């Protein structure tokens, strides 16, 4: 009996939590006049018209924004996986002068609010003539600036037996060989986690894309979506919801496919 009650309560809770999302999905399938008529979920006159309208109503095909976001996301994923693993390998397996200090510095940057570097980074990127290009979003990921991922990988590498390194060394591997042939393959669960979170966070990232991008054809999905209101006026709620749904789909798909990895990755951060 208790169990049934718990299930009823938990299901009701989940429904309340997810109701706004479900409602947005169905609202995107309704004509504008119907959206505000009642709070139910079933569209009376379902239509895909909002999607057609929204796709091109900012003057630029929405596919352009999606492509821009995908380019930035792909680059960030590659950058983070590559450079964070190099950094993590050095911290986890190599001895060098200043190791402790630098490791402490790396940990400290995890908690550092990005605003402290924001203004100076902006002026540096401006001097490099990188404003209104993708570089300010991409380059930092190739310099292992997301210390959270470095930390995640350091923890993971520490759980790989050192004996494997020693065996590889006897077989004639240097540091690079060990990294390339032993660590990288065994690290792949952490690399996948890093890739997934890099993708989701970059896809959703609004702030840096807002301040660095201005040309309409260079905009990314979040910035374009936010500009949608200005372009169409707030009357086109159906089209706005349709485009909102499109921007959420990649994240939802990644979540459904990698659900276990994502939840385990989250849990991992709290325990080690």
């Amino acid at each position: 009996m208790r169990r049934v009650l718990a299930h009823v309560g938990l299901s009701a809770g989940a429904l309340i939590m997810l109701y706004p999302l479900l409602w947005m999905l169905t609202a995107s399938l309704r004509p504008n006049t119907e959206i505000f008529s009642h709070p139910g979920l079933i569209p009376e006159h379902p239509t895909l018209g909002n999607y057609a309208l929204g796709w091109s109503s900012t003057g630029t095909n929405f596919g352009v924004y999606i492509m821009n976001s995908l380019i930035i996301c792909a680059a960030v994923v590659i950058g983070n996986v590559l450079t964070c693993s190099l950094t993590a390998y050095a911290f986890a397996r190599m001895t060098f002068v200043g190791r402790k200090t630098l490791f402490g510095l790396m940990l400290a940057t995890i908690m550092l609010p990005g605003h402290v570097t924001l203004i100076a980074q902006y002026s540096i990127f401006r001097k490099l003539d990188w404003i209104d290009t993708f570089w300010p979003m991409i380059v930092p990921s190739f310099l292992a600036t997301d210390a959270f991922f470095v930390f995640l990988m350091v923890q993971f590498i520490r759980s790989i037996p050192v004996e494997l390194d020693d065996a590889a060394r006897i077989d004639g591997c240097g540091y690079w060989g060990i990294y390339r042939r032993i660590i990288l393959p065994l690290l792949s669960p952490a690399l996948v986690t890093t890739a997934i979170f890099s993708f989701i966070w970059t896809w959703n990232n609004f702030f840096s894309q807002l301040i660095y991008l201005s040309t309409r054809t260079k905009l990314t999905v979040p910035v374009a979506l936010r500009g949608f209101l200005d372009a169409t006026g707030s009357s086109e709620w159906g089209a706005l919801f349709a485009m909102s749904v499109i921007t959420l789909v990649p994240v939802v798909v990644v979540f459904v496919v990698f659900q276990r990895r994502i939840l385990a990755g989250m849990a991992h951060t709290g325990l080690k």
Partner: protein
Amino acid sequence: MIARLRQSLPAYLFLLPWLIGVLGLTIGPMLLSLYYSFTDYALLNTPEWTGLHNYTALFQDSRYLHSLRVTFIYVGVSVPLEMTFALAVAVLLNRGLKGLAVYRALYYVPSLLGGSVAIALLWQQIFGSDGLLNQFLGLFGIQGHGWISEPGTALWTLIVLRVWQFGAPMVIFLAGLRQIPDDVLEAAEVDGAGRWQRFWRVTLPLLSPVVFFNLVLQIIGAFQAFTPAFVISGGKGGPSDSTLFYTLYLYQQAFGNFRMGYAAAMAWVLLLIIAVFTGLNFVLGRTWVFYGDEGVRR
């Protein structure tokens, strides 16, 4: 010494990207923005040294002080609520119910999407005067209210948005609960401890490092919230500055008014505030965080 440095060389080669990043994108910009914070700098001019002027001006700027207040209310209300929900649902889910994985995934979805512009736009609609919430209230004959357009309630819609995302700390709590050995709880039960006693006296102390971890992270994150306030208020922080988050005001000063020095000073004060809160957490944490048992590793 030279020999040791030579031995270190391979490691530094591996660390090269990170070293460039930490010097060029973290430490360098930190120092540079510290310098800017003592100058009058509008991006196109050379920074002009003004000493402490930006800092003293901050604390005479009523909008700044207001943004500070708004942010404190937001952090102070949303974080405890979010943590309470996260812990309560985690405990409910941790009783060997079937379908745990499904619930866990469903409750986590809002955390995954919550920071996106799409959700902020959705929120704007839900709490608008003819939005979803008022349609529901209308079913019960309750007169609606312009939740987002009224200064008295706008901030609360943003607090609700954050609390809605309790799934992320919940997942971490669940993992922590799983580390608590069953025999400890069984022993307490044998000793006659009731459900509540077991929770307060056994589960919570053993979980306290995880509570602490979540608390620190959530506070740091909440202080930096930006996207929902920006999107919902159209970048203005309205109505009547009721959603003027700290970071939103910083954005307005830097990229609206090009007062880069002023914004840099704001960023440094934010760093100080976050450092103080984190430090305070660590100091107070000693009184309630319990690291004694092998069941909970840190």
